């Protein structure tokens, strides 16, 4: 008898993704065994997705405070102060697992979820970014499926972001085989709020009514948070009911009605219903406010009849919110929602017992301490300073140039053509032109990939303010895979460089840690050192981490993704500054490399192109040099001494140089610049004692490419000397699309590289 029960329980626990130890912990705290409804709640709230049980102790190490930080981690989104009463809320969130099984809805609900995090803070959403990582869409056995997943995810993002009227101003796309079967969709959003009118999420005032707002509750997305905390396999497609369905029209009405309701002053706190729905928002509001909450499920608007208590509790139906109101003013708030056609109904009240309780058909079906679900959720420390696996060590210790013969000068043109035909270097215009980038009339710069979008901030009431914010996401997962510590530092540094390239001062970070199964030592090693790297870099750049998201168990059939600690960053431009752009402006301008230039083939796109694998140490990083060079770049832009700025990134020096001769602005036809480059790289190559391919295509941290009018050269050089930043003149911009690498060399036409760049990533 005992055995049967225990087997049954074991099976239930397995289905609910809970361990027997966790079950014991619940029972001990409750003083009784949880009922089925309660167990379901623990299943989702104690999932990695909701409580970060494998990463919480690591995240505590990250710097979270700074003079501009109005809200650090712990609320729906982080908030930074800009000036003149203007503040910006921002956050990044993943929707990886849903995208793997239903890409359109998976991606749309990712955008919807992150937008709710923003406007729940009483911030009007002003910008979206999307960081996408998929399997290769043009070759390999999964190419067809990858293309389907990718193009549908892009359409989903476009559908949602365009309809809610929030411009998508940037993001990135990256392709690698490790994302076949487990793509990454990380959505970032930012919003503006005024006069510190932050909405909080903790329940306040015993006896105050709890208002349910938004779409009806249905059976979609059942247990989605628990689903998101498992590895994917062939059977995952059967999990499709765990994917929610998004409706941007409902969201748009929710945005407008919530912001209007918040203005009434009668909404005391609010929380969106995201992962784990009513269970999560109720428990979190109660726990945060040190209160209890009693909710009558029979009052919750249902999409279909005869829903079970369990289904109400765990539904992840989209576009729903929970709010605590000032008692006596319910009708005034409900009237605002009615005007917008948004359902709003009082479903419960704040209580003084610190327990979350649910009634169903008049009976109490759940009664557990709110904090047991949230603050007391398990946290697993898997040991400090975990050792590197032999396999990872061997991979990292290989010579980056192993098996690679150097290239000849005469072959440079054909290598350029091949590199510009790589998915990670080709122009992702097919993606970004599906996103509305101008709605709201504030977009100063819409980035296509790996740079920054810039959005003007308005004053309260709508007049122009002198401020704008630059936004970027970045991470090269190859570097992190080969060496998590320096790789994560590189991701932070690259994001900072993206901001500096437009002239912005980096302010703060939101991070999305996408990793495999942390129960495997090799993955935990990656996670542990990536967090160390982010910590160190964020301290160096003085960019606190205000929150973010952790997505673990990103594996497909037992193979983990390349770890991707995606860094979302917000930067500031003041004094009505016009953002700087990367493209060369006119023939005759001179081009120079500034900063620390230490290229390596380890983990480079070029190495991958030639060898179909990556190995060796990725680019090294000096945070001191990064910080110094960044300040100089911003100074050169502010003093109008440069015509263009970009960093040296994927593809290395020559790819970055040539890309700057292509017109990247979607507002204009590509290929019309007709610009080229006459370079002389001999000095640089000799001084750094580099092979030709390492010089041209090796990747590096810390380097920027600038162009300037010839008569500005002395001033630029002097500024570099004063800042103790290396200055290396490389050549000049030509008026025809050709390239020379040394004075007597035959011209290389850039036409075929341009064609590859334009056409490879068409959708």
């Amino acid at each position, binding site marked *: 008898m005992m055995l049967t029960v225990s087997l049954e329980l074991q099976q239930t626990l397995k289905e609910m993704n809970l361990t027997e130890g966790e079950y014991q912990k619940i029972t001990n705290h409750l003083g009784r065994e949880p009922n089925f409804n309660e167990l379901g709640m623990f299943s989702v709230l104690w999932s990695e997705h909701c409580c970060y049980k494998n990463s919480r102790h690591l995240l505590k190490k990250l710097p979270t405070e700074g003079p501009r930080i109005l809200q650090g981690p712990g609320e729906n989104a982080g908030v930074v102060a800009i000036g003149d009463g203007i503040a910006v809320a921002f956050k990044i969130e993943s929707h990886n697992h849903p995208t793997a099984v239903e890409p359109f809805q998976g991606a749309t609900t990712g955008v919807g979820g992150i937008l709710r995090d923003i406007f729940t803070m009483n911030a009007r959403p002003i910008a979206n970014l999307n960081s996408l990582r998929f399997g290769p869409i043009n070759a390999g056995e999964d190419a067809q499926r990858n293309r389907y997943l990718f193009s549908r995810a892009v*359409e989903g993002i*476009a*559908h949602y972001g*365009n*309809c*809610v*009227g929030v411009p998508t101003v940037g993001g990135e796309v990256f392709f690698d085989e490790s994302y076949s079967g487990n793509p990454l969709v990380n959505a970032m959003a930012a919003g503006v709020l005024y006069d510190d009118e932050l909405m909080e999420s903790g329940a306040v005032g015993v006896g105050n009514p709890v208002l349910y707002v938004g779409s009806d509750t249905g059976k979609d997305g059942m247990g989605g948070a628990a689903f998101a905390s498992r590895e994917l396999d062939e059977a995952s497609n059967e999990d499709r009911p765990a994917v929610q369905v998004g*409706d*941007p*029209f*409902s969201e*748009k*009405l929710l945005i407008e009605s919530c912001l209007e309701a918040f203005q009434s002053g009668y909404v005391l706190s609010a929380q969106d219903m995201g992962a784990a729905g009513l269970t999560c928002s109720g428990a979190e509001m109660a726990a945060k406010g040190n209160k209890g909450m009693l909710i009558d499920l029979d009052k919750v608007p249902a999409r279909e009849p005869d829903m079970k208590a369990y289904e109400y509790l765990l539904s992840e139906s989209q576009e729903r919110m929970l709010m605590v109101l000032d008692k006596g003013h319910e009708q005034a708030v409900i009237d605002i929602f009615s005007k*917008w*056609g948004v359902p709003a109904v009082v479903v419960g009240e704040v209580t003084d017992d610190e327990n979350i309780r649910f009634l169903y058909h008049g009976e109490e079906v759940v009664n557990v301490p709110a904090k047991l679900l949230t603050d007391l959720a398990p946290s697993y420390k898997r040991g400090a300073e975990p050792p590197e696996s032999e396999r990872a060590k061997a991979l990292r210790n290989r010579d980056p140039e192993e098996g690679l013969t150097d290239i000849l000068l005469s072959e440079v043109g054909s290598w350029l053509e091949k590199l510009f035909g790589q998915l990670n270097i080709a122009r992702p215009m097919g993606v970004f*032109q*599906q*996103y*509305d*980038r*101008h*709605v*709201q*009339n504030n977009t100063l710069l819409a980035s296509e990939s790996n740079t920054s979008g810039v959005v003007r901030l308005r004053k309260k009431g*709508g*007049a*122009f303010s002198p401020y704008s914010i630059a936004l970027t996401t970045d991470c090269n997962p190859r570097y992190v895979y080969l060496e998590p510590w320096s790789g994560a530092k590189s991701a932070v540094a690259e994001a900072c460089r993206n901001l500096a390239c437009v002239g912005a001062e980096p302010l703060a970070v939101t991070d999305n840690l996408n990793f495999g199964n942390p129960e495997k030592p090799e993955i935990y090693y990656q996670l542990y050192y990536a967090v160390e790297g982010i910590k160190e870099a964020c301290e160096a750049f003085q960019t606190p981490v205000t929150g973010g998201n952790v997505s673990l168990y990103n594996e497909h059939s037992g193979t983990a993704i390349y770890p991707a600690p995606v860094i979302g960053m917000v930067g500031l431009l003041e004094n*009505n500054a*016009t953002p700087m752009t990367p493209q060369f402006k006119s023939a005759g301008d001179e081009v120079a490399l500034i900063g620390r230039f230490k290229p390596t083939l380890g983990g480079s796109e070029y190495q991958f192109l030639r060898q179909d694998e990556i190995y060796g140490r990725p680019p090294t990083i000096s945070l001191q040099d990064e910080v110094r060079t960044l300040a100089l770049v911003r100074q050169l832009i502010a003093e109008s001494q440069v015509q263009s700025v970009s960093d040296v990134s994927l593809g290395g020096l020559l790819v970055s140089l040539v890309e700057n001769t292509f017109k990247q602005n*979607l*507002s*204009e036809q590509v290929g019309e610049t007709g610009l080229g480059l006459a370079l002389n790289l001999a000095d640089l190559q000799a001084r750094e004692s580099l092979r030709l391919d390492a010089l041209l295509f090796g990747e590096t941290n810390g380097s920027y490419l600038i162009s300037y009018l010839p008569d500005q050269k002395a001033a630029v050089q002097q500024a570099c000397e004063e800042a103790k930043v290396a200055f290396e003149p490389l050549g000049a911009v030509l008026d025809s699309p050709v390239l020379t690498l040394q004075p007597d060399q035959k011209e290389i036409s850039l036409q075929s590289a341009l064609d590859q760049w334009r056409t490879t990533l068409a*959708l």
Partner: protein
Amino acid sequence: MKFGIVVFPGSNCERDSFDAAVRALNEEAVYLWHQDTDLQGVDAVILPGGFSYGDYLRSGALARFSPMLNSVRTFAEQGRPVLGICNGFQVLTESHLLPGALTRNTSLQFLCRQVALTVENTKTLYTHQYTQGQTITLPIAHAEGNYFAQPDTIKQLEDNHQVVFRYAEDVNGSINRIAGICNKAGNVLGMMPHPERNLWKQTQWTGEGRPLFDSLYTSILKTLASV
């Protein structure tokens, strides 16, 4: 002078249009709620871009049944100015205030980019501050901007010079590269490109969409003077 900007649930460019009236022209503007019928004495109506009623059924198809649109129809029939931008254009064709229909782009994708347009008719309320044949650049952002009408309708539009803006190159499959048309009387203009999203350069209200609103402004001034 007072501009009325109709707000449907799902409109998302009402603030962009507000910029045009209030910040570029320095005039008054009011939002007209879809369920109201009172036009509040406005001198011109703007139907803004967005996804009215979620664009369910067809883009603009449900908006035509709103109470406010009845008032707008009467206003248009009196010869008063009605400008529909993007979703507003779709609402105008669905309401039969303008002929034809806007169908899916030939790419079957949402398309956001800057496009070159030629101003085909400068004798309208909206365009007299452009020069005939002038090329201007405005952004488009739509999935359904592929203008379609029966051949005889197209012929009428062309013969009457009702094609006000034409794409310089094919962007979405529109017949005759039509980007914007007016009614026969010339007081109702519908266009897919967004003039209200090219109003400023840096901090100055000198964008290439500005002359459209300047034209409308002086046209209304003239009408007011003649009354």
